[in-house]
């Protein structure tokens, strides 16, 4: 087990800087999820920790040891790849044992560890099969088994579930979480799926364009997003952003409606309200001209525009709701659920 420290990490390819001064301290046994859109540098960051990419500048420490110059094999880490990366010509058993064999571990010990991992992952019956004879979920388990048998200090996961179908993904997500809790191994998990990130991570590192937007617990990110990007990225459906003018503790929306709860903000701001925080209220200040409904069963998504403007608004209401298109619905939102951002910097305006 070990902590991981990232200090002022920079990665450039030629003249292009793809990671800009990334800092982060990961505690022993923590499950960290790095999340962000495609091309934000999350996989590059993970591969740098793994030792598959060189570090341009900065420092990576695993435990107390600086590992910048160490080969992947000497970092005491194991990695699960997006496409599983199982050796196609080896059986499941050989796939799991290969790393141990290279490390010259005794035959009996290898057999014991493979058996143990196979029991944990319930892949015992498949040990003598080749990867191509397994289903996607089984291959995923084998890939994890290969990581487990090594008994490493750190697990790295590179979008391990993105090739599975939706149902299996939810199931494997839970299993990965249980497994990590059981083994207590420090883990870094990369994904572009914010739901996966929210459910798995002790803490989330949100990356965008090579910058760390925010690093915190899922609830912190949800309740107090530090930037417009995090606010829009975390939560589904994503947060509504309404241009507004703040002054004297009140917010004036584009159509002249006024809301309480601007804090110390003043001037032109962007107001963020999550769809689930819009409460129906006939006399509410946020008046929405309804365009369509999405019925999800447990709740209903109301799509529309802020009355008198072009600004899209989505509200998530419990149960079944319907009305004719063009109907005006009134909403209100509690002051504690209003997020105020500076549109120029994209950063949250502190209360």
């Amino acid at each position, binding site marked *: 087990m070990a902590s991981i420290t990232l200090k002022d990490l920079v990665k450039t390819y030629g003249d292009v800087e793809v990671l800009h001064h990334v800092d982060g301290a990961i505690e022993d046994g923590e499950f960290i999820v790095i999340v962000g859109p495609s091309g934000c540098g999350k996989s590059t960051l993970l591969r740098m920790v793994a030792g598959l990419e060189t570090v341009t500048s900065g420092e990576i420490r695993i435990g107390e040891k600086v590992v910048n110059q160490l080969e992947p094999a000497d970092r005491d880490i194991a990695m699960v790849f997006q496409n599983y990366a199982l*050796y196609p010509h080896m059986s499941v058993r050989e796939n799991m044992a290969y790393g141990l064999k290279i*490390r010259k571990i005794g035959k009996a010990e290898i057999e014991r560890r493979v058996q143990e991992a196979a029991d944990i992952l319930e892949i015992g019956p498949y040990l003598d099969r080749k990867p191509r004879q397994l289903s996607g979920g089984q291959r995923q388990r084998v890939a994890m088994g290969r990581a487990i048998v090594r008994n490493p200090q750190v697990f790295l996961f590179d979008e391990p579930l993105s090739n599975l179908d939706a149902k299996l993904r939810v199931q494997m997500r839970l299993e990965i979480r249980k497994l990590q809790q059981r083994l207590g191994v420090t883990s870094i998990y990369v994904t572009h799926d914010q739901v996966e990130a929210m459910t798995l991570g002790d803490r989330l590192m949100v990356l965008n364009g090579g910058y760390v937007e925010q690093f915190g617990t899922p609830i912190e990110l949800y309740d107090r997003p530090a930037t417009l990007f995090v606010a829009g990225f975390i939560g589904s459906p994503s947060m509504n952003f309404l241009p507004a003018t703040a002054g004297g503790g009140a917010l004036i929306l584009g159509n002249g409606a006024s809301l309480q709860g601007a804090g110390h903000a003043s001037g032109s701001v962007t107001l963020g309200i999550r769809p689930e925080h819009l409460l129906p209220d006939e006399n509410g200040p946020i008046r929405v001209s309804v365009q369509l409904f999405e019925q999800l069963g447990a709740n209903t998504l109301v799509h529309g525009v802020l009355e008198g403007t072009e600004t899209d608004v989505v509200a998530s209401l419990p149960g079944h709701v319907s009305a004719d298109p063009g109907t005006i619905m009134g909403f209100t939102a509690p002051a504690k659920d209003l997020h105020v951002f500076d549109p120029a910097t994209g950063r949250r305006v502190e209360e």
Partner: protein
Amino acid sequence: MHKIFSLSRKEQLAVQFILIAWACVVLIPLGVAVINSFKPNLGEVYRAPLALPSEWTWSNYAEAWVGANFGGYFLNSAIVSLSVVVIVCFCASTTAFVLVRMPFRGSALLFACFMIGVIIPIRLALAPLFTIVKGLGLLDTLTGLILVQSASMMPVAVFILTAFLKSVPSELEDAARMDGALPFQIYWRVVLPLIRPALATVALLSFVQAWNEYFLPLIFLQSSELYPLTLGIAEFRAQFSVQWHLMFAGILIMLAPTVIAFLLASRQFIEGLTQGGVKE
């Protein structure tokens, strides 16, 4: 099966006629050679070249093998061709692995040199090549011939293998690195099994090329006991110019290994080896 084009009946007839005609052009001479190689004497070959033999006999094969020393030529051809296959497969796959996965300063230039080698036939460089082989003291040795023939196959082999290796995802090699494999172990245990289909192509090409090569042995060999089959047949024709029934037997002996090589290698092409290791 889904058809991209569907042909009218007339068109189908035309296409099939062309295919059958071409098959005849290829197969009739071969069939004639087979028939005549089993005839008991030369007279029958001349009297009725297209008729079946009056009695089927293997004696022509035995005589060509022993009497005309085809056994010795065959052995020389086998030594040369198999050595070329092993050398080319090993050298070209290691070269391709390094060029594709561990590019270094100047690797692009190196690759360009190999590509130039694809375009320019080795015969153009014969004079310097001859001087080098002579300087190494390898003239009139099978070793010299093997090295020259291997070198002449390298550009095409490197070309095929680099192209194939580029299409193989590198995650497997990353995984092997995480497992602690050293570069040579990655090459041997991971890359080599993955590129087996391309390697089979290279092996087949270099085998057939080496087996059928006439020109290079002619230049680099002098002693007739070192002759491969190609030179052996020429020698045989000079000595037994009218013994067609023996000649046909000799030609068929020479043909057999290439046919077998094609049959063996074609299985490799079909086998989808990378399937299952990574998700496409």
